[in-house]
């Protein structure tokens, strides 16, 4: 059996770090907080790896299927009979894989930050936030309950907010963290409503029960969910689409991607952890978690996933080719890669060979975590060295940052899908799955693959080759790469990026838990790899040396280049919607309405009373005879009234 205590400790250790450092860090652990956080995470990572070992090799497999194990579960909040939020752990292949990925990358980032964030005033706060994030992310992947996942989903969002806004005195960081939170919140709205729909029809929030009820065609819940429809789609499809909306927000799918590039305002290690390796794939994870329902009961939703993923992949890749801020390039590359994972899921079927896309998606998630974290950390080293994010400030850095250079190159090769690096294997599987299911998606994926290779090497050449600006000639040779703590993670991740591809993923992670051996077709690989090489070649031509080729080419694209450079004006669109529509057309009129109509009515009541009071003051004229007259008139009126009329 799995050890519950160990399992619980995996998320709780980072949480302990958060609480400890958050409450007392500033006072007592001003300098030691990094070490404390790292040690706690190391423990957590070891436990995760131990758990993975136990699960995959000892207890997980029963009768050839990997089981979904719920080792423990506590009722946290009971809504009604059967519907309750249970806090527990759901252990199955994907969650275990995620545990390993998260703890590993997080550990790397913790270690890296020891050097990168050194001397920062809010050092302990930083580590406590990292702890919070790791805790939330672990809680997210371990969720046994759809509401639990929502809870940690939100927590992840808030930690992302805190970390993006870590440099809170920078207005751009403030804007970015707000944007990130609000955009994902908007997506979460869909997720929440999706949860409401699913829970209403399934009568439960528990993943296992929910999936079981909504996928077996003869369960009454399934019947009801299919039967009721709205705007031509069944309630179940709606639910799944809305849940996917939540995932799309977190995973920065079109059109909810706009927050991710801005999120690069956070410290670079954070970008590596949250905005490259872990949190942003939460959406993929969510779809994977509910995959049986998508695949079996809501294929339309799954098709949507495929198209959204594919379009996003291409779209982001195009933009990535034009960006000059290295972190933004990486951000768009992340979006593009997550698009890959998404459409991989979208083209998957349930069970066996048909589920190749699922396996591929998870595989890519795994490998991507390695090389993308590596890329970010490498970029972090560069930025740490240069103190700038702009490509034009860089060039020829291979001399100064040798380790970074090598590891970065490994990562670039991996992401470009060049064998035998990790990315090759996972991408290959994805494309293969796509080609079998959906040609359109496949071709989009293929083009994206080529673009990926191009923009990654554009980045690589721009940073490490190209010119050698005179500003860099200052004596920085020895300062270089920020010491052991910053180099070690790079190396470890580079090893991962290089060799993770050889893990036989199909043995462990499949859509239905049954292992299978993906069939590999070397003929199939030729085209993607060739495209990748072409991309690298073009990048080499354009950026290896300082020349004016890039300008020419970009000029030849004209308006398209400009649009891509401006991220196809999505930010402006959103700004228009928020400023012009939400603020000016809803908020301002509402505020006006409140001050003038609602409040005005209340005031008017008072004023009218006062006015009437002034109007009628003449009755009290001070003339005693007039009083008598009123007296008599009133008497007569009353007499007439009650004698003749009101009996």
């Amino acid at each position, binding site marked *: 059996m799995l050890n519950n205590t160990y399992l619980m400790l995996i998320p709780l250790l980072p949480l302990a770090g958060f609480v400890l450092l958050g409450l007392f860090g500033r006072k007592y652990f001003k300098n030691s907080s990094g070490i404390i956080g790292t040690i706690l995470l190391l423990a957590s990572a070891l436990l995760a790896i131990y758990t993975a070992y136990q699960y995959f090799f000892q207890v997980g497999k029963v009768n050839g299927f990997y089981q979904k194990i719920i080792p423990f579960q506590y009722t946290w909040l009971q809504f009604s009979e059967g519907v309750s939020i249970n806090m527990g752990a759901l252990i199955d292949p994907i969650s275990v894989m995620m545990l390993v990925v998260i703890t590993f990358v997080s550990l790397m980032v913790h270690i890296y930050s020891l050097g990168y964030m050194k001397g920062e005033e809010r050092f302990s706060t930083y580590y406590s936030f990292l702890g919070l994030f790791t805790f939330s992310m672990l809680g997210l992947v371990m969720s046994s309950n759809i509401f639990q996942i929502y809870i940690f989903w939100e927590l992840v969002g808030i930690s992302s907010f805190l970390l993006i806004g870590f440099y809170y005195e920078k207005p751009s960081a403030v804007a970015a963290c707000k944007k990130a939170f609000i955009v994902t919140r908007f997506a979460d709205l869909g997720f929440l409503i999706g949860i409401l729909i699913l829970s209403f029809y399934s009568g439960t929030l528990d993943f296992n029960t929910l999936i079981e009820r909504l996928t077996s065609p003869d369960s009454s819940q399934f019947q009801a969910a299919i039967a009721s429809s709205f705007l031509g789609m069944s309630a179940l499809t709606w639910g799944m689409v809305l849940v996917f909306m939540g995932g799309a927000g977190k995973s920065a799918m079109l059109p909810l991607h706009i927050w991710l590039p801005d999120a690069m305002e956070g410290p670079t290690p954070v970008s590596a952890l949250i905005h490259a390796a872990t949190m942003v794939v939460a959406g993929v994870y969510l779809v994977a978690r509910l995959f049986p329902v998508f695949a079996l009961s809501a294929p339309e939703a799954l098709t949507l996933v495929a198209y959204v993923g594919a379009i996003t992949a291409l779209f982001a890749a195009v933009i990535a080719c034009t960006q000059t801020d290295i972190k933004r390039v990486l951000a768009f590359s992340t979006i593009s890669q997550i698009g890959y994972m998404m459409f991989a899921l979208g083209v998957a079927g349930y069970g066996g060979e048909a589920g190749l896309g699922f396996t591929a998606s998870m595989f890519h998630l795994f490998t991507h975590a390695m090389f993308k974290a590596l890329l970010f950390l490498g970029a972090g080293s560069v930025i740490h060295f240069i103190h700038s994010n702009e490509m034009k400030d860089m060039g020829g850095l291979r001399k100064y940052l040798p380790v970074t250079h090598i590891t970065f190159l490994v990562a670039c090769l991996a992401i470009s899908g060049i064998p035998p690096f990790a990315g090759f294997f996972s991408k290959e599987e994805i494309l293969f799955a796509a080609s079998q299911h959906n040609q359109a998606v496949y071709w989009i994926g293929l083009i994206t693959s080529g673009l990926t290779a191009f923009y990654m090497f554009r980045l690589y050449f721009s940073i490490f080759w190209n010119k050698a600006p005179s500003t860099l000639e200052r004596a920085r040779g020895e300062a270089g790469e920020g010491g052991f703590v910053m180099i070690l993670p790079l190396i470890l991740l580079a090893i991962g990026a290089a060799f993770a591809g050889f893990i036989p993923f199909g043995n462990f992670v499949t859509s239905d838990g049954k292992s299978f051996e993906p069939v590999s077709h070397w003929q199939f690989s030729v085209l993607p790899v060739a495209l990748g090489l072409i991309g690298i070649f073009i990048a080499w031509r354009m950026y290896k040396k300082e020349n004016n080729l890039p300008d020419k080419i970009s000029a030849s694209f004209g308006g398209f280049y400009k649009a891509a450079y401006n991220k196809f004006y999505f930010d402006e669109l959103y700004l228009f919607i928020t400023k012009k529509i939400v603020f000016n057309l809803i908020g301002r009129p509402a505020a006006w309405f409140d001050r003038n109509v609602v409040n005005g009515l209340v005031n008017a009541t008072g004023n009218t009373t006062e006015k009437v009071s002034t109007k009628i003051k*003449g009755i009290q*004229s*001070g*003339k*005693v*005879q007039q009083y*008598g*007259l009123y007296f*008599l008139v009133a008497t007569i009126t009353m007499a007439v009234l009650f004698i003749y009329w009101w009996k």
Partner: protein
Amino acid sequence: MLQPGLYHILFISTALFFIGVYGFFTRRNLITVLMSVELVLNSVNLNFIAFNKYLWADKLDGLFFTIFIIAIAAAEAAVAIAIIINLYRSHHSIDVERAEEMKF
């Protein structure tokens, strides 16, 4: 012409009552206002006596009522005149219209 009876007297008293009331409303001099009040009270007296005489002669309720009304009228008049005189001392006028310092 008819034999005078209750209704005639009631006509007189009612007429007198409203003559008094009219006087009360229109006279500008406070003392004349008071005089109008006296008319009103007298008309009531007439009513009582008439009812006592024509309808309810077995008891003298109406008559006694009248006697007491006369007494009260006297007392009221006395106090009223005292007040009016006092007012005259401060206002140097007993015009009703000028005694309207307090209003609204």
